[in-house]
């Protein structure tokens, strides 16, 4: 292909179009918020519902963040929903039937998740079985395991300490209502601004780095907005805090570690990675082990929010997570993806669920509309890529 040598200057309208394209998912999310607020007469945007929305999103967005790395490496994990079911069942049964403390149940759950992930990693990396098959097998087997562990019965009640993970809010100091959330929001908001000021230096650097500055402003506004909304209700929900922690850790892993960079390299060009001396097998093994742990964390959040474990818990969750990752900008071809995008993607999916439930829409319509959104999101992505 003959290459264009002319560099792209960029008219304002072009730059505007590019900016829209880059933030398309975020814009879509704002539109969804607006539409549902209008249709529900404001109920959607109430602080109570927004707090609720964050609780609903938590488990899927945690899985979706792990899924981003898996898809970036050129693989897929279809087992996540069944892992949630099996790990949730195991932790619940320990509490309900053996009277285990939350810490013990969680430890066992984490090890269980890690073992499942290592099992996947072993077959995919060292035995060369495609990930779609390995995880499909686990999807079936672990659903069976969930039935066996729960003996087909709903396992409840769970230990209050365990329920705290999924149902409570940040504990307060008792100074004033939701004091910790408010103080935390102010500290983090200021912290981000200060780091930004230090990094970008003088005012000239801000104008030069307009997109950087805009990003930091957007991040600060988002932190203050989320903190504000949560303060106005019952404080920061614990699941949302866990999501933030997983986001920070996985973003760090993806962008600042050798492991993360090499996962992106494997997804971009596996042969190049091999020839550069990357131990691809070890990386894929590690990646699926990590995915097992991340999914186990999602299982705790989900099980604790529901308050019980059942054989069908988490069914179809893997598909929601995959959809969230892709809506959030992860390319199914591998090599491209962002952890933060997955949270936005998950939020789009749950917003649809939440909003349509508020409108009392029939379940059949809900599924069809979600399907359509997914289709459109991927189509939009394809069109953007073709334009380059």
């Amino acid at each position: 292909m003959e290459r264009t040598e002319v560099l792209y200057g960029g008219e304002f309208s072009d730059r505007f179009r590019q900016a829209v394209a880059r933030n398309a998912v975020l814009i879509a999310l704002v539109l969804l918020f607006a539409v549902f607020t209008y249709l529900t007469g404001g109920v959607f945007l109430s602080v109570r519902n927004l707090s609720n929305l964050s609780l609903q999103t938590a488990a899927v967005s945690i899985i979706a963040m792990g899924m981003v790395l898996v898809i970036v490496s050129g693989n897929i994990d279809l087992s996540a929903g069944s892992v949630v079911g099996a790990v949730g069942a195991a932790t619940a049964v320990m509490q309900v039937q053996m009277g285990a403390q939350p810490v013990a149940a969680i430890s066992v759950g984490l090890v269980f998740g890690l073992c499942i992930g290592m099992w996947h990693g072993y077959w995919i990396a060292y035995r060369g079985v495609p990930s779609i098959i390995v995880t499909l097998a686990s999807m079936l087997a672990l659903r069976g395991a969930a039935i066996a562990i729960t003996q087909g019965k709903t396992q409840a009640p769970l230990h209050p300490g365990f329920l705290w993970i999924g149902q409570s809010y940040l504990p307060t100091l008792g100074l004033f209502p939701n004091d910790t959330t408010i103080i935390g929001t102010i500290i983090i908001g200021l912290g981000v601004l200060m780091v930004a000021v230090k990094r970008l230096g003088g005012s000239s650097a801000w104008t030069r780095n307009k997109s950087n500055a805009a990003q930091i402003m957007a991040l600060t506004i988002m932190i203050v907005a989320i903190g504000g909304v949560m303060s106005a209700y019952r404080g920061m929900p614990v699941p949302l805090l866990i999501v933030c922690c997983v986001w920070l850790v996985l973003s760090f892993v993806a962008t600042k570690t050798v492991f993360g960079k090499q996962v992106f390299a494997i997804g971009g060009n596996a042969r190049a990675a091999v020839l550069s001396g990357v131990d691809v097998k070890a990386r894929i093994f590690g990646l699926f082990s990590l995915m097992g742990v991340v999914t186990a964390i999602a299982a705790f959040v989900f099980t604790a929010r529901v308050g019980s474990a059942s054989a069908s818990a988490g069914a179809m969750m893997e598909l929601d997570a995959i959809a969230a990752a892709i809506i959030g900008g992860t390319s199914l071809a591998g090599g491209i993806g962002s952890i933060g995008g997955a949270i936005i993607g998950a939020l789009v999916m749950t917003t649809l669920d939440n909003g349509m439930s508020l409108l009392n829409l029939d379940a059949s319509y809900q599924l069809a509309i979600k399907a359509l959104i997914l289709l459109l999101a991927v189509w939009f992505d394809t069109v953007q890529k073709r334009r380059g």
Partner: protein
Amino acid sequence: MSVIDENPNAFLLRMSSISKSFGSFNALSDVNFDLRTGEIHGLIGENGAGKSTLMRILGGVYPASSFTGEIMIGSSPCQFHSAHDSENAGIAMIHQELELAPNLTVDENINLGREVNTFGVIRSQKNLARTAAVLQRVGLAVIDPHTKISELSLGQRQLIEIGKALVQKQKIIILDEPTTSLSLVEAENLLSIMRTLANEGTALIFITHRLDELMAVSDRITVLRDGKLVGTRSTDAVSTEGLVEMMVGRPLSQLFPQRKSMPGSQALEVLSWTVPDAKRPGLTRVKSASFSTRTGEIVVFAGLVGAGRTELARSLICGYGAKASAGSLKLGGLETSFASPKDALRKGLAYVTEDRKDDGLVLRQSIGINVTLCAPHKVSRFGVISQRKQTEIASQYIKSLNVKCRSLDDPVGDLSGGNQQKILLAKYLLLRPKVIILDEPTRGVDVGARLDIYTTIAQLAESGSSVIVISSDMQEVIGLADRVIVMCEGAITGELVGDEVTEGKIMELAIPKSSINSLLEDKNGTH
């Protein structure tokens, strides 16, 4: 060119009596090869001569137990059991298909697998410093290390690959046809950087089909033929003709078939054809191009890479991302337009792509299937493919084009570049198009296969087809053409016939006027 030291201690690498066979086929028999510190050593031969096999042995792809002979690095014998062993011994292989991750940045690619880190956390400043130093050495200091690889040109990517080898501090760098897909300027730049690296003490093995480049840059040249060593010569002591003779095994008086130009009636006529850029609205890739061709005539489109020749050809058959915004097209004297490449093919205009791997062939499918891919009606009845018919047709073309293969059922991907190109040609010959456009038909093709392809092109013209060839190879342009059309920056800048067809005239028309002026200024400045 550096002075060749006859001191035996200066040998960095010595491969002695290397033999390797696949089944009953002897890929290499008793080949010797050596390399001195700081030299550029050319390795040439036709496809199948054993160059790749020899380099794969050196690269550890074929482990020590699978061949006989000895490899010495310095004064110590080496046994490579894997590509990793070879790498650790200081050998870097730069593959023809560039092995970079397009989704990552220059910095990330250069350091990939060797990131400076503390407990797995990347020290980005240290990595960046290393990248900057390497970019400086390969002449890419102007490139921002945060640029994504996908935004770089092929030539720049090639240099990044070399940069990677430098990070690894490799003493020997093997370059497998590095200039094949580069423009003239990029290729020259690469060659001069190779020279600099050699002067700094790195030894380079340079595999290429372009003898002029080899003559310009190498210190010594080794020629292989049919798995045997023909000889190693000092570059000063050989001529291009001599090398070709060594490669082919017989004097090659004429690379291009002698033919009389006998233009017939008008075949294709294009009038003020204008094509916008597919990705960037507002830019124009082809500017009001008008030309015509006749039956029995070979017209060559010359120009620099990026001149718009491929876009012109692709847009004619409706196979470019954007449609022509103006212009008309006559085929055999009748005004036509095409709805799709398939439609163009049906009406008698075929375009043979320059990118056989991505656009031309189904690499994993058999030779038979590939040859008949465009003409299912010729091998099937009621949608059912006749295996017998397919074999019959494919073997006919295999024979006439002199394709070297074991069986028609082999996947095309297993063939050498030259033979793949022949299969691609066969695919379109089967359809007997009135006008056929061949885009860089000999890119990455060895001398022997070139001869076959040129002969086929000549036969096509003789049989009354109108042949259009897009070529960046000067020798080819001059040797093949009845008429040369030169393009520059999207516009046709001139047409040359007969004695006018010279390298100087073509370049004069091909180089943008602005850059000629700046070249002149440079010259005046130095004097």
